């Protein structure tokens, strides 16, 4: 039984190390920032999640004490990784505004959200001299 537990822990640690390595190789290998963003935010987070589950099983099964820290770390990382990836993609889009003219029209009266939201107001949108709009 202990052997099976150790096998499971070792497997989780090895898989975690493998995925962390895959994420960093992708960070080197992929060509531009937008494809490059996939590797660290997906593969590395997945690998770290595997390592944290392995660590929790280790402290629960081998050492005999329950530790909740790993759940906190993995929860925090799994919440924050998409947010930071999205933030980096948005900052990159604003630094490379030359891609904007190549985009097709959106087909509605809304523009492309990242590029057009900060510039021209949409038709029908309350302007700054609209009395219903609260003062900023």
């Amino acid at each position, binding site marked *: 039984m202990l052997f099976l537990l*150790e*096998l499971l*822990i*070792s*497997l989780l*640690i*090895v898989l*975690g*190390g*493998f995925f*962390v*390595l895959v*994420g*960093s*190789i992708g*960070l*080197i290998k992929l060509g531009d*920032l937008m494809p*490059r*963003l996939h590797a*660290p935010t997906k593969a*590395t*987070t997945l*690998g*770290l999640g595997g*390592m*944290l589950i*392995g*660590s929790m099983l*280790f*402290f629960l099964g*081998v*050492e005999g*004490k329950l*530790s909740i*820290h*790993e759940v*906190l*770390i993995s929860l*925090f*990382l799994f919440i*924050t*990784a998409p*947010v*930071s990836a999205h*933030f*980096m993609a*948005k*900052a*990159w889009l*604003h*630094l490379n505004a030359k891609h904007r003219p190549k985009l097709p029209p959106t087909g509605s009266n809304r523009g492309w959200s990242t590029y057009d939201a900060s510039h021209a107001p949409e038709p029908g949108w309350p302007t700054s001299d609209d009395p219903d709009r609260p003062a900023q």
Partner: protein
Amino acid sequence: MIQLALYFGFFAVSVALLLNLWRLAVGPKLMNRILAVDTMVINAIALIVLFGIQYRTTMYFESALLLAMFGFISTVAYCRFVLRGDIIE
């Protein structure tokens, strides 16, 4: 067996950190460097977790949690500085 797996984990995370350092050094632009630093923080958390298993202590996990929080906050602050030219307006 856990020890062998830990050796593999240390090796993999260390190589991953070196690759991130390479990306941080060559760039080519600002956003790639921010991404490299963000990945380095996550890899450092992985290294701390592996150290905790190696020395059989749960004391390292507080530092891992702190590093996770500060890594996220620093990435968001840097991206916000790039976007707006200011962090707290």
